[in-house]
């Protein structure tokens, strides 16, 4: 029994750990500087927790085997060891708080610094069960919104106020495109319940909260097409509420905008 139990404990631990080495199911590619710093923090955490995992499960299996085998000596009468308590408490504290402090820097870079100069503003409005992307058009101004003028089938899902001249050149489309290497500021909104904007490759996620306009910024540095998946339970269509982010070279991006402006 002791050996079998030890082998099973080590076995499940090994089984759990192996895919972290083979990376059979792994993080998608990182397409921005921010994404790469998140990955660095992730790997740092993985090494730290991985080490603790191996030591703890290893120790558990070993102790179960060593002290489970039949032997004649009595168990050791000990109420503990204050030195060991102090040591491993300090070690754990240093590891965990250290990781926390290292991670805060990554977080601060996203949220505490202001939006970069010249960031392209794009408004993203979630609804049950679609994403609506709005560009301000050549005038660079978003038209005012009026919920009474919302018309999903009539091509005005966010309710641009027809009386506002700034809204005349706004482009409302179901997918997003951004130029590579340019900062973008997303203005996140929702029409009905809480949704969440999530692009794994950007390592960015932000809930869209009713009543709030939340800004996040990113700078994509690799071209490609990436899925936007809703990441907050929003109703029966939550699983299929998705859109696409296309990161394009600047000329393609201009072309993309022009094609949609015409519609």
């Amino acid at each position, binding site marked *: 029994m*002791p050996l079998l*139990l030890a082998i099973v404990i080590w076995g*499940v*631990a090994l*089984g*759990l750990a192996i895919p972290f080495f083979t990376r*059979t*199911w*792994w*993080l*998608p590619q990182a397409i921005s500087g921010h994404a790469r*710093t998140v990955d660095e923090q992730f790997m740092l*955490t993985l090494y*730290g927790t991985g080490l603790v*995992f191996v030591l*703890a*499960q290893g120790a*558990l299996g070993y*102790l*179960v085997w060593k*002290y489970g085998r039949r*032997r004649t*000596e*009595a*168990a*050791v009468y000990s*109420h*503990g*060891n204050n030195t*060991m*308590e102090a040591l491993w*408490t300090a070690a754990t*504290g240093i590891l*965990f*708080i250290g990781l926390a402090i290292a*991670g805060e820097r*990554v*977080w601060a870079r*996203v*949220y*505490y610094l202001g939006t970069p100069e010249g960031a392209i503003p794009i408004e993203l409005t979630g609804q*049950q069960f679609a994403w609506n992307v709005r560009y301000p058009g050549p005038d660079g101004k978003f038209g005012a919104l009026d*919920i009474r003028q*919302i018309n999903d089938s009539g091509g005005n899902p966010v309710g641009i106020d027809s009386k506002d001249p700034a809204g005349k050149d706004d482009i409302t489309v179901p997918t997003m495109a951004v130029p590579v290497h340019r900062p973008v500021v997303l203005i996140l909104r929702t029409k009905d*319940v*809480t949704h969440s904007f999530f692009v794994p490759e950007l*390592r960015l996620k932000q809930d869209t*909260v*009713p*009543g709030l306009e*939340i800004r996040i910024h990113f700078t994509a540095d690799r071209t490609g097409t990436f899925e936007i*998946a809703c*990441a*907050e*339970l929003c*109703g*029966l269509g*939550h699983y*299929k509420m*998705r859109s696409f982010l296309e990161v394009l070279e600047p000329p393609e991006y201009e072309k993309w905008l022009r094609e949609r402006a015409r519609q």
Partner: protein
Amino acid sequence: MAEMAHSHAAVHVHAAPTGFIRKYIFSLDHKVIGIQYYLLSLVAVFIGMVLSLLMRWHLVWPSAKIPLLGSLFPEGAAGGVMTPELYLSLMTMHGTIMVFFVLTTAPQSGFGNYVLPIQIGAADMAFPTLNMLSFWVTFVGFLVLLAAFFVTGGAPLSGWTGYPPLSALPEAGPGQGTGQTLWIVSLAIFSAASLLGALNFITTILDLRARGMSLLRMPLTCWTWFVTAILGLLAFGVLLAAGALLLMDRVAGTSFFVPGGLVVSDKIIDHSGGSPLLWQHLFWFFGHPEVYIAILPGMGVVSQVLSTFSRKPIFGYKAMVFAVISIGVLGFGVWGHHMFVSGMSPYSAIAFSVLTMAIGVPSAIKTFNWLGTLLGGKIRFTSPMLFAIGFVSLFVTGGLSGIFLGQPAIDLFFQDTYFVVAHFHMIMGVASIFGIFAGTYYWFPKMFGRMMSEPLGKLHFWFTFIGVYSVFGPMHYLGLTAHPRRYSELTGVKYLAQSEPLHLFMTVAAVITVAAQLLFFFNLFWSMRKGPQAPMNPWEATTLEWTVPSPPPHDNFAGAYPVVYRGAYEYSVPGAAKDYLMQSEPDGKG
């Protein structure tokens, strides 16, 4: 050391009841009430497991015709094929039933009620009538929750977390009508019952300890029931308040959680001024202590069992007490880690994150001390011991995934993915359950006067231990691929296709693991009737429950209240006649 010379005459001691109704239905006896809570949680866990199997089946075979499903849910599963909305309802009910009626019920109200008074040398809880009331109110709450399945629109689909506006607006989805209202009412009833129970536990521990049973001689199980009760007292009131506000938003025209300007399915919603974030703060202010309520008693059981079957004192008793209290206190400061991407102030994320990482420290202390208890021990591999050892392995795994989630920069990626689902299932859905199994195998002889079958218990352990790693291990990898959670189907988002083999593996593992639980159910009920007679102290353990007959008489000690001379973990004391010294044995004897 303070001696609790509380006069036993001052305790309301009631005569033994006669008649079936007073003995088994409306009983004031904490032992009967504990078993009632335990049986309630058994029914709940059975339903919860069936729901989870239905969910796992649907994820792999979404168009399958499932037998009986069409007749049970004519709206949600016409022709036996589960709709996405029914999946979400089953998921909501699975979470709600498991968290409240299993994990908050069996470890604290079940085992706590049964064992606590005996372990501290009392005849019963401080308020036996309140205790009976607490159980029956909990039972009514369970019925109200189950009723949500059968009303028009069915059970709610907003998850066990019930975020508004989805949960506040009946227009927002099927099940969001009467079903959601019943869900809120059920939780309000459950909260009220929990508050009553918490008052009972705290008073009992403070007032009814036998002479010589100082707080620092109490078994660690009593410490965890104590801190858990304090957490419950402080947290459930907040859930009750939040539920009341949500109910009012739904039926009384208020807008605590719903802002203006919303349009749902082309309909302008008549609310204004509310904040969805307010619900999240209230819910998680309760919700985080709630998960410590779910795990602390299991930790107490594990400490008890590891010490008993290593024939060694628990390693670092005072550090363990400190850790339990720290977890309780810190547990009130971390709720924002559920809300890093919610839209709350990003500056608060730092505070919540540092506290969250800090709470890993007392958890690590406990883990090291459990390992330290095994070190130098003389281990006996009984069924309770196997589950206690399994708990340690699962707690390490589940706890470590929390280190990723507690950092907001990493949580940006993992929030609302299967990585979170992996984390909380490992910790709650498995470690906590192993605590319940360990407690069952350990105290069954005392509760029913019979022994459970050891071979069946061991078989149950092997299947379950390997099974739960097989079901929940792969969820970590799904999280790495950014697989969102709460998706009814995998057909909407393209990058989920790579996960299909993992989903199939997990579903097969889940079927096998759930089937293996039949071994436990069979062992439990068969042994109640046919198990071999249990002696007073089958495990040669030191705490007070093992000094009374199996099962104990109505007032536990038959009038002969114990006096306590030592701590709860005096095993293998050098020079003693036996390798264990009972707490109530006067000095010098074995």
